[in-house]
Structures are given as structure tokens and as C-alpha cells.
């Protein structure tokens, strides 16, 4: 989405304005990384960056799905539980002896199905997304403990390969397969949002659902679609998480929905819908990842100071993001 003409003043000036929030976020992220490098020696290792991606791959995928939902002005609280449920179901099915492929298929179907049902409830019965997805969250988490109240190990060959295969350079820096999957999801999502009718309808609904309806856009279908997409992303995230931990555990990813929403919003997407980019979401996830990395590298904080410092860093980041962003408004 570039403008052809760079000659006219106002048009040129207007173009980046839309991207200012994302650019500011990127700049601040780099500043934060710079601080890390200057403070802690090993921070400059390439692998540290790779680790941020490895450790946050599943979060990224889920956040991409959430971006769709938030862009329409909705919210999906069920993601964390759906991630856990997907991992749990995979582990459980693998344990019961099913081969990898059918397990993958089943696991990848559960999330979107639940998302679809939630979308239908939201659209057809006009119930607030918050409640519907909260019920979805209870349901999915309930399914986890229902399946097993202790964690289940995954020993399947495919899973272990996916978990431990390293794609890297000769110097030993590497990323996991999950990172590539996450990138693929990001690219597809960015394409869908920018270049397909579905994507544009998502933005339109977020801008003004009433207008979108009167403009003859398929509001209902799109609404249902975004919750389904979010469900699918959560399912993929769940699979990635099961690669990551090689197990399904009933209590994993508790409270993840908040991290995900935070990442999306930090990435510049507005909670009321209609504005934001997937790339921003990537940055949002990285911000959380780098904050976490800074904290572990420091290693001198006790439990409560950890929380206070996370909150403080988050605050500083958002404050700068906001203040710098305002200037360009």
C-alpha cells in the first residue's frame, strides 16, 4: 500500500503518518534491545534474538489470530485455554497410540470449530464477545482437566523431531521449526488483511459495523470468520506449544490471553477496532519477549520486583510510544 506520487507535499507527509505508531514501536524496541546489549554482555549474541523468536513463536501465532478479532472490535478470551486444550488433546491422542498425522488434523480442527461456534453465538444471538469467549475459555480449560489432571508426555517421533530439529548456521546459532511456521502464519495473515476482501471487511467492520452492514458487506460471515481464524491460530499455537514442551499440561498457558491482548495492543492495534497491522503485533510480541529476556539476564530481582519492573518497563514503553506518537498526529 504505497502511494505512487511522492511529489506533492501533503500526500508524502500523510503516508508515513499512518505508519508512525508502528515505526515508533519499532524504534523503541531497538532502543530497548540496545539497552540490553549495553548492560549485559551475552545479550548481543545472535542466539538471544533467535531465542526470543523460539520462545515466543506460539505466542506470535496466537496474537496474529487475536489481531483479526480485535480489528473487528471484538475480543477473544478463549485463546490461552484453546492453546492448552489443543496441546492436551494432541498429547492424549498420541499417548493413546494414534499416529501423528490424524492427531495433527484432529487437533487443528478443534480450535476453529470452537471459534466458529463462538462466532455464531456472537453474531446470531448478539451476545457480547467478552462473555461468549469467556465461556469458551472455561470450556476449553475444563476440557484440559477433564482429559487429565496431570501432564502427559509426548514421545512421538514426529513431535520430537519438530521440537528438537535445529535450523541454523555453523556457529551454532539456530531457530526451531516453530519459528518458521510462525513466520509463515504472519506472512499469510498480513497478506489476507491487506489484499483480500475478507481482510478489508475486517477493517471495515472495526471502523463502523453499522456502516459496514449498510454498505452491503458480509458482516455476519466476517465476524464468524475472525473467531474461526482466531481459533485456528490458537490451535496452531497449541501445536507449536506441544512441540515446544513436548507435552500437554492442564495448567499451561493460563492467563496467556492477557499477554496476547497486550502484545496486540502494544503493537498499535486499537481495541475498539479498525486500525492496526500484523507487523505491529509482531513487534508487540517482541517487546514482551525482550522485556522478559532483560529480566532474566539481570537475574538480581526477587519475585515481586520482577513484577514491578515488568510493569515499569511496560509503562515506560507505552508512555514513550504514546508521547512520540502524539507529536506526529
Amino acid at each position, binding site marked *: 500500500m504505497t502511494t505512487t506520487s511522492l511529489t506533492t507535499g501533503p500526500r508524502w507527509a500523510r503516508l508515513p503518518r499512518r505508519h508512525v505508531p508502528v515505526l515508533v514501536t519499532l524504534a523503541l524496541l531497538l532502543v530497548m534491545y540496545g539497552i540490553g546489549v549495553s548492560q549485559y554482555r551475552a545479550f548481543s549474541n545472535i542466539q538471544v534474538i533467535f531465542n526470543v523468536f523460539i520462545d515466543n513463536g506460539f505466542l506470535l501465532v496466537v496474537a496474529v489470530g487475536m489481531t483479526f478479532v480485535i480489528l473487528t472490535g471484538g475480543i477473544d478470551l478463549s485463546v490461552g485455554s484453546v492453546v492448552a486444550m489443543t496441546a492436551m488433546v494432541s498429547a492424549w491422542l498420541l499417548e493413546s497410540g494414534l499416529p501423528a498425522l490424524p492427531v495433527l488434523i484432529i487437533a487443528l480442527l478443534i480450535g476453529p470449530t470452537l471459534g466458529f461456534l463462538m462466532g455464531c453465538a456472537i453474531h446470531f444471538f448478539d451476545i457480547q464477545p467478552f462473555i461468549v469467549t469467556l465461556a469458551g475459555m472455561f470450556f476449553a480449560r475444563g476440557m484440559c482437566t477433564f482429559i487429565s489432571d496431570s501432564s502427559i508426555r509426548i514421545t512421538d517421533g514426529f513431535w520430537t523431531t519438530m521440537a528438537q530439529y535445529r535450523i541454523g548456521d555453523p556457529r551454532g546459532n539456530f531457530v526451531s521449526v516453530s519459528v518458521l511456521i510462525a513466520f509463515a502464519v504472519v506472512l499469510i495473515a498480513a497478506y489476507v488483511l491487506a489484499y483480500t476482501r475478507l481482510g*478489508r471487511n475486517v477493517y471495515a467492520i472495526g471502523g463502523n459495523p453499522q456502516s459496514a452492514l449498510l454498505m452491503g458487506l458480509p458482516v455476519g460471515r466476517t465476524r464468524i470468520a475472525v473467531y474461526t481464524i482466531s481459533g485456528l491460530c490458537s490451535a496452531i499455537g497449541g501445536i507449536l506449544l506441544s512441540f515446544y514442551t513436548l507435552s500437554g499440561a492442564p495448567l499451561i498457558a493460563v492467563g496467556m490471553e492477557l499477554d496476547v491482548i497486550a502484545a496486540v495492543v502494544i503493537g498499535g492495534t486499537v481495541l475498539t477496532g479498525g486500525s492496526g497491522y500484523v507487523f505491529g503485533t509482531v513487534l508487540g510480541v517482541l517487546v514482551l519477549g525482550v522485556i522478559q529476556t532483560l529480566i532474566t539476564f539481570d537475574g538480581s530481582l526477587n519475585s515481586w520486583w520482577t513484577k514491578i519492573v515488568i510493569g515499569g518497563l511496560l509503562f515506560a514503553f507505552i508512555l514513550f510510544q504514546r508521547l512520540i506518537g502524539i507529536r506526529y498526529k
Partner: protein
Amino acid sequence: MTDSRPVLTMTGISKSFPGVRALHNVDFRLFPGEVHALMGENGAGKSTLIKVLTGVYGIDEGTITLGDEQVAFSGPMQASAAGVSTVYQEVNLCPNLSVAENIFIGREPRLFGAVRWGEVRRRARKLLTRLDLDIDVTAPVASYSLAVQQMVAIARAIDVQARVLILDEPTSSLDAGEVAQLFRVMRQLRDEGIAILFVTHFLDQVYGIADRITVLRNGTLVGEYPIAELPQLALVEKMIGKELDVLERLEEQPRRELAALEGGTPFVAVSELGRKGAIAPFSLTIHAGEVVGLAGLLGSGRTEAARLFFGADRADRGEVAVNGKPTSLRNPVQAIEYGIGFCSENRRAEGIIPDLSVRENMILAMQAARGWLRPIPRRRQDELVEQYIKALSIRPANPDVPVRNLSGGNQQKVLLARWLITEPRLLILDEPTRGIDIGAKAEIQKLVVQLSDGGMAVLFISAELEEVLRLSHKVAVMRDREMVAQLDNDDTVDAERVMQTIASGSTRKEASQ
């Protein structure tokens, strides 16, 4: 001119909302190649008829036939797929999307499923040129004034190859130039055989373009008439069910004479007030009892000027004096303390609080001025609300319905009442008669005259130049976001002279930015 067989037939349509019967047994026919005006007072059921047709609301009774088929659309999406293209009342666009995208969303040119953005922009530019509008199509639609948005919505509708084109008050904030342009396009489409349903409250427009008229009153059909058989006065009579003496009386009123106001200190005097990127510095004085009109074309900066007077936007240069005392208008609260009121042109985004009731919407400004600790006693509320519901003939006359359920024109009246209740010393009216029916418009004009006679100053903005001239003592002419002239509204001033001033106004264009 017309085919013998209607493209659209609605028979026996009834539609009720809880507590309101919006349509009762209405018949309506639309022929290919005609412009058909749907007329009626505010709340007569025009918009409801349109929404029922396009499936926004379900119907209680009746049938709709499009072409040869009986239809019951489940929503605008189906309707537009069947060849019914609609511009609904109020601008219905997505503020966050670009102009080009708003025009094409839902039917973007695509290549292998991917939207061709270049093509979208190119076609949008072309389409807007047809409407004589040259704007940056990549900018978000929210960055344009309401009038431009209205044009964009029209552009969206006329691009569709439709059988039926419905325009619900498309001209409510356009001025003469744009209206003429729109009519040119409408005639073109009509000649191509498209059936056009057109709603407006401007009688001249009706007689300028319509072939036939259907009149609704109180949700029932009054009749369907060829334009030639229904002279203006008869039409008005059919619409309001009685003869309109008010209107005539106002027409007869002498020009507003500039009284001996100029001598005293003006109520508000601004000098070199301006805001970068919005409006070039200008000076203007308004005396108590004076009506100052702002004239100008679409996007000329009238709204921007008005907002500075109210502190809705903060001026970044210039001086303000209220009652001769220098001050600054930093925010609406402060302006209100000085006794200034501002009725915005954009009633949906900046006017009504849709969830709140008519009563609450009306007393809001007064309550805000009193502070939350001193609620207006219920009895007083009732008095005020009742008084203005009657004065402005707001329907339904029930103060406790949510204002969102009112028809567009009635919402506008509620907003007007909100400010009248506060009895301001200076009332800024930005397109106060937008979407208001002819009877009520006369009432409002009368009210403005009355209030200014009683000492209230008014800053009056309207797309309808005649209206401005009829009411104002003084007319300030705007052009390209600059105030180019101030004319005393005496016998020498008429619409033509103002248009000339606009056309030839000094062009200090560079200086304004």
C-alpha cells in the same frame, strides 16, 4: 419517458417498532428511467420504507416485487446483489478506511483474489472526477468534512451497475454546486434507464429533478403524483396535512435590518484568529442580537471557523475578546461559561448520545453547565422538554425513547433543543436545518429571528445560501479556508453577489498555510 411496467412495487407495507407504527399499509411503485421523489415530514417513514425495502428491517406485512420476482432481502448485501444500490440517510462509511476503499469495498477489482490497489485508486479518482471532486483518495475518509463524505457515499452508490438507485437525503449538506453536479449524474443515470428513488426536504430540488412524487404522512400513503400535477403549495399541504401559513409569513418577512448594533461593544470579537492546517487567520465581530451568516462552498472552512469560536479546536494564534475583555477560548467548557453554544453539523459523530433518551439529550448541555452536583429537578426537565418538543414538533413526542430511535430530522431537532434550552448569548448553528422538513425549518428560522430579536447573537452556517441571506444581518464569505469578505446584508446583497464574491475573492492561498 417511463416504461409501463414498474421495476419495483411495494404493496401493503406495514412496519411497527415497539410503540411506534412507522409504516401502515403503504404502496409504492418505481419505474425504470424515472427520478421519483419520496416526500414527507420528519418521521413520516421515508427512511423506514427504504430500510424495509433493502432488508435492514424485516416487514410485518406486505410484499415487495423487484422486476418480476417477489423478494424479501435479508440485508443490504442481498439487496445490492439484486441490483438495488442505496445511499442511506446519514453518512454510512467506514471512517478508518481510505476514500478509495470506501467506494469500492466489497467489490474491489481483484487479480487471483488479491485486491488491485492501484486499480482501486485509479478508478476512485475517475469516479470522483465525475462528481467534480478532487481529493486525495488515499486519505482516510474521516479526515474530510461531512459534505465530502456524503459525496463519497454517493460515488459508491452510483458506481454500481444497479437497476434501482436509492438516495436518502443525499443533498442535506451539499451546496448548490455539488447538487447541480449530482443532478447531472442522476439525469445521466436516469437516461440509461435506472430507476432512482430520491428523498429530500428541499422543494426546489424536487421540482428540479423529479418526475413523480410519492407523499407519506405519519407512516401512511397520501398519494402518488406526476410532478406536473402537484404544485409546490399543494405538495406542502399534502405533506403536513394542512396549509402552511408559517412558511408564507416568513417569506414575507422583510430583510433583516442591521440595527444600531455596531456602536456598542461586540459580544465576541476575534482578530487574526487562526489554526494551522485548518483555517487562515480571520477577524470577526458578533454583537448581541446580531445574526452573522457564514457563506462559502463545501470545504471552505466554515465549520473550522465555527469550531474556533467554541473552543472545540484550539486556535494557535489570534485574540479573542468577549464583552470587550480579552480572553482565550481553550475548550468548550470555557466557551459555555461565556454563554456560547455550538450545534455541530455532524449530528451522529458530534451530536447525539444515541443510548440516552430524548430528554437526557436535550438537557445535557444545560446540566453540564450546572455541574453534576446540581441535577435539574424533574419538574423543570419536564417543562423544558415538553416546551421544545412542542415548539420544534419533535415526533414521537415521548421524551423517554432513546434518541437513536428517532428519525434523522427529529434527532436534529433534539440537538437544536439542547442548545436552545441553555439560552446562550451566542449560538453557533452549523447546518442546523440539515435534514429538517419544510415546516420545521420555517419554525426554526422563525425561532432564530425571535431569539436574535431578544438579544441573542447567532453565527449561522448553512449550505442553503438563501437561508443564510434570509436570516443574517451580516454575511462573512469564506473561500479556501480563508475569510475573504464581510458583507452587510442590505438590499444590494443577494445570492448572486455572494457567489461572485466567492469566485473572485482575493486568493491569498499561500498565506493560509
